[in-house]
Structures are given as structure tokens and as C-alpha cells.
């Protein structure tokens, strides 16, 4: 009896070890496959690129060192450049701030309309959800480029494009926040005859506002980057200044260096500020 039991225990152990080995082999295979796909992908991207990877790697630091050298050579001019490009930087920040503000306000309405228990028209919940998905899916550059054609260059096309995307992206996050909100205050308000707007404004918003603000701040960080990059493809702000500055060519990179510095400092400062405020919001909750 004991021998049999021992034997079967051994068999179980062997089976188990075989299972473990097979699992390890599979996960090893997946890793190898993944690395192979990645390597093949980089190979393909390399072959489609104008310059090769290895030749490019050797002159990777040419441009940055050129920038730094010229910035050091013309240190005296740097504060002047920084001062000159400050309005463009402020424009970029303004684009981000306004589009976050407008996008967030739209997102609040959209998210309330697409949350069960809060929606004004419960039947339209799927419609508003799909609308938000659609708004999220459209890359900002598409809207920005089309609007630049209609409205001309400048900050407004970028602002509309980013606000549109922000409304969709924040709407989704906000509706997740709404789902965790307590519905009792809303019921209480409706029992005293409050309208939908009153119920939302007095019952729902106070509960979720800290989370809203936290997400909106995070979105603001993202939008500053987005508005800088959209400037480069034709909208206003620091991006368009950068485009002009780097096309000047060798010997005049000091302006480009100043813009790089300004952009870097701004992004770091905004990241720090926003994470400080977000921590504060999370702690006071």
C-alpha cells in the first residue's frame, strides 16, 4: 500500500515537474518569438529609414553638441533669446490650458450623460459612450491640419483639436469616476424636486471634483506637449518658432538651443507643479 502511494506521489511529482517545464518552455518560446519580432521590426524600420541605424548612431551627438557649443559661444545672447521666445511659450501653454479647460467642461457633461444612474436620457448612454470613443480616436493632428486649412494658421486650430480629443479622453476617465460615486445624494435631491442640472451640480459634482481635477491636471501635462508638437506642424506657439529656428542652419542654432531649453524647463516645471497638486488632491480626499 505504502509503496503504491509513494509511487503515485512520485508520478504526481513527475507530472507536475513536466507541467512546469512545459510552461517554462512555452513562456521561453514566447519571449524568443517576441524578441525575434522586435528585432525583425527594427530591421525593417532601419531598412525603410533614410539613414541607417549604425551610421546614425555615430553622429547622434553631432546636432546636440552643435547646439550646446553655439549656445555656450553665445551665452550672452541666451537671456535675450529666452525673453524673445517667452510669448510663444506662453501661447503654447495657453493653448494647452484652454483646451484642457474646455475639454474638461465638455467631458463633465459627456461623462454625466453616459453614466448609469446619472444620465439625463438613459437610453442615449451608448450613444454618448460611442461619441467619446470617437472623439478619443481622432488624432489631434488630423483636426488641426483640416482646421488650419479653413481657419488659417495660429493657436485656434490647435486649441480646438486638442480640446476635442481631451473631451473624449477625459470623458472616459470621468465616467469611471462617476460610476464610483454615491447615488444617494442624487436621490435625495430628486425627492425634493431638483432638476437634472441641480442634481448634478449639487449632488454629483462635489463628490467627484477632486478626482476630476487630478485627471485634468494630468491631461494638462499631456496637452502642453501636444500643443508644442502641433505648433511644429503649423499651429502657433513655440513649436512653430522651433521649426523656423532649426531651419536656419549651422551657425545660428543659438535660438534653437534657447527654445529647447525653454521647452524643457517648462515641461519639467509643469510636471512638477501638477504632480504636487495631484498629490495634494489625493491626500485631502
Amino acid at each position, binding site marked *: 500500500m505504502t509503496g503504491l502511494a509513494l509511487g503515485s506521489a512520485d508520478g504526481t511529482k513527475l507530472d507536475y515537474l513536466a507541467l512546469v517545464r512545459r510552461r517554462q518552455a512555452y513562456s521561453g518560446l514566447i519571449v524568443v518569438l*517576441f524578441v525575434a519580432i*522586435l528585432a525583425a*521590426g*527594427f530591421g*525593417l*524600420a*532601419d531598412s*525603410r*529609414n*533614410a*539613414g*541607417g*541605424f549604425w551610421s*546614425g*548612431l555615430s*553622429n*547622434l551627438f*553631432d*546636432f*546636440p553638441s552643435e547646439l550646446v557649443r553655439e549656445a555656450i559661444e553665445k551665452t550672452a545672447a541666451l537671456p535675450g533669446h529666452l525673453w524673445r521666445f517667452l510669448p510663444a511659450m506662453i*501661447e503654447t501653454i*495657453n493653448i494647452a*490650458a*484652454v483646451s484642457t*479647460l474646455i475639454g474638461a467642461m465638455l467631458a463633465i457633461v459627456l461623462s454625466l450623460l453616459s453614466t448609469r444612474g446619472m444620465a439625463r436620457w438613459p437610453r442615449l448612454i451608448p450613444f454618448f459612450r460611442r461619441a467619446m*470613443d*470617437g472623439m*478619443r*480616436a*481622432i*488624432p*489631434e*493632428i*488630423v483636426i488641426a*491640419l*483640416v482646421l488650419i*486649412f*479653413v*481657419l*488659417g494658421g*495660429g*493657436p*485656434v486650430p490647435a*486649441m480646438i483639436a486638442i480640446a476635442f480629443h481631451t473631451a473624449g479622453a477625459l470623458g472616459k476617465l470621468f465616467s469611471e469616476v462617476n460610476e464610483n460615486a454615491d447615488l444617494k445624494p442624487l436621490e435625495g435631491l430628486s425627492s425634493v424636486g431638483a432638476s437634472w442640472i441641480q442634481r448634478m451640480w449639487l449632488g454629483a459634482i462635489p463628490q467627484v471634483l477632486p478626482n476630476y481635477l487630478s485627471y485634468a491636471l494630468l491631461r494638462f501635462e499631456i496637452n502642453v*506637449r501636444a500643443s*508644442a*508638437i*502641433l505648433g*511644429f*506642424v503649423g499651429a502657433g506657439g513655440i*513649436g512653430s518658432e*522651433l521649426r523656423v529656428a*532649426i531651419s536656419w542652419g549651422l551657425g545660428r542654432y543659438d535660438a534653437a538651443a534657447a527654445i*529647447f531649453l525653454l*521647452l*524643457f524647463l517648462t*515641461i*519639467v516645471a509643469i*510636471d512638477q507643479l501638477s504632480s504636487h497638486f495631484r498629490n495634494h488632491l489625493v491626500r485631502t480626499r
Partner: protein
Amino acid sequence: MASVESTDLIGSTDVAGLKGEVARLFLRRRAFAFAVPALIVAYLAYVAIAFDLSGLANRARMDNAGILIADMVSYKVHVTRDNRVGRTTVAIEGETKGTYGDGQWPGWVAREGGATVVTLDNDSIVRFDPDAVRFEIPGYGFLKIVQDRSGIMLDTPDGEIPDWINASSVRVTVTRPEGRLTVTKTRAELFRYFGGWELFFFTLDSPFYGKSWGELASMALSGERVRPERSNLAAMGSDFWNNAMWRHGDVAWAIFETVLMAFLGTMGAALFAVPLAFAAAANFTPTRVMRFGVRRIFDFLRGVDGLIWTIVLARAFGPGPLTGSLAILLTDTGTFGKLFSEALENVDNRQIEGLRSTGANTLQRNRFGVIPQIAPVIASQVLYYLESNTRGATIIGAIVGGGIGLLLTQAIQTQKDWEEVTYYIALTLIMVTTMDMISGWLRSKLVGKR
């Protein structure tokens, strides 16, 4: 409850004071509730001035918007007579690739000796006669435009020039709902507009052009080969794929390139970020200096931002998908490093201790004690960024010159083929939505529904 108790404790004499305090609190809240919207409105007003919204109304080209919307769902056929060559051509969108062969002209364009007669809607007729261009508009009369070495002469029935004609000595443009005629000294060109996306499937030189779906299906099934070297279905596929007007093959390749940039950038960043995150996490790297250094690297990578990385890398590697991939990779290494190291600092230490008690070494402890704990975080973040980077790669592609972003910017900047722009936008949306669905599906498989 608590407030009732406290009033009891304090005694009734303090009720008035408490009431005052509550009233003050309410007043402050009310002031706050009004101040915030007021601040928002004030800021929006400032921005409206800073962005020159009032000037925007003048700068906005609503006619451009009209052209855009009309052109998105329509195409135009150019009938052009070039006086220098003395030849008339009929071409879709005026492109060489869309030019009708001489025996292929559509029914509404006819040759009458040396003249070309174009019949438009509303029975309007445009004649490119050897001596003049004539536009017959029912209910209005004949326009006669004579091209001369010295200039262009326009004769209208009543001698007046209506507002739909723009005439000077070098150019006459007649804009009618049925078509648009432009006459200069050397050429006369008529645009006629049609709905739809012409040549979307097959170009004029393809034997499958102009066939209905039923005809195409029967051609695909029948054994009679249009091109002897391959079956009809393969020939259709190749004619569609190599369509010179819409370039489906190139567009599909561009979409693939965009997804490739996002995939390589995101996955590469994750590969680099995992070991770096260990170096930046306090519970794995006791050395302060090391931790500080790695964290500053993350901050630097994130702070420099995709735009700057893209520009710097494009200088070294030239335009193309590799540059875009590397730009995404560098930015996201910073982001992932920060996120992963935060996840590492929150791992449960008991599992690691358990492994240590069995005599596992550092590598084994990390492999079996730590990685399983942070794998869901890594997977869900990576998949989330994969979707978001697909959108980002569209913009980066526009800067570095690769993928659908490049096609999109080129098509928009040439400002003529809005139907192609629409096509690209639709494909971009399908691409992003598909990536969103795939990453959402994978996330729910790997991590489980939140």
C-alpha cells in the same frame, strides 16, 4: 450628530457664535462658488483676446470649408484644351493617371470636327471651337470667349458681367453650378463635378474599370482570363493594390509603418525601462546616488519630450520609421521607468522573503517574487501606451516623414485631393480604433477586468 453633541457641550450661549461661524463658512463657500466660474470666464476672455478670436472671423476661409466638404465626397473631371499643343484631353482630377484614352471619352464629351462639345447639366453646353470658347446657358444666352495673342475677350449677351464671372484681360473664370470654366491665353479648362470617389477600385487602364459588382463577380468566377498570366481574381487584386490614383498598396504600407513605429517604440521602451526601474526603486537599490541618477535620467527623457527627441534623432538618422520608433522609445523609457519603479516600490515583501527562505538568489527572487507582482502593471501600462502611441506616431510621422502622418500632411498641404484626405482620415480612425480594441482585449486577457 457630532455638531449637535458639540453644541450641547458648549452650551446654548455659544449657539449664536456657532451660527455666525456657519454663516461665515457658507458665505465663503458661496464666494468661492462664484469666484471660480468668474476666474474661468476671465481667463477665457483673456485668451480670446490673446488668440485674436475677433480677427479669426476675418481670416477664416469659409469658402475653403465649402470646397473641402464638397470635394470630400465628389470628384471633378477636367476637359482641357491646350492651345500650344493643340490637343484636348479629358482627365479625372486633371491627373495623367486619370486621363481618358482618346477612344474612351465619356458620353458627355464629344468631338465635332475641330471642336469639342461638352454637355453639362441643365442643358448647358460648352464648345471649344477653333476660333473661340462658347458657353451656352439656357435662359441666359451665349458667352463667347476669344483667346488672342494680345489677351482674352469676353462677350456676354447683355454686355454686363454677372458676379459669377471673374474676367480680366489674361483670365476669365465662369463659375456655374454645373461646372467651372477657366480660360487663359494658352488654355481653356472646364471642370465638371460628380459625386463619389472615382477610380477608387480600378484606374482607367484596368480592364475592370467601369464594371458593375455583378460583372466583376462573374469575371472573377469565369475561366476566361483577361490577362493570360494570372487568374482574374488575382488580376483584380493587383489592379486594386497598384491603383495609381489611390495608391492602396502605399497607403496600407504607411498604416503598417505607423503601427510599427508605435509597436517598436513602446515595446523597446518597456524592455529598457524594466531593468532601469529596478535601479530606481528604493527597495532594490539601496545606493542613494545610483537611484538619484537613474531617476534624473527618467525625468530628463520625459522632460525633453517627444518633439525634441524627434528633431534631434531626425538629424542623425534621417527621416523614416526608425527615427520615429526611437523617438517614442526614448520618451516612453522615461515614462515607463517612472511608473514601473513606483510599482516596484509598492511590491509585497512577504513573497520575496518566502523565496529568500528557500535559498533563492537575487535573480531568482526577482524572477519569481517580484516580476509576477508587477507584470500586470507593466502589461496594462504598455498596452495603454501602445494605443496612445499609435496616435502619437501619426504626428511623429508627419514630422519625421514616415507613415500615414506624412501622407496626410502632404495631401492636406497640396490642398486639392480632399477625397484622399478623407480616405486617409478614415483609415487612421480604423487603425486607432483597431489598436484600441486589440490592446483592450489583450489587457482584459492578461490582467483581467478592472
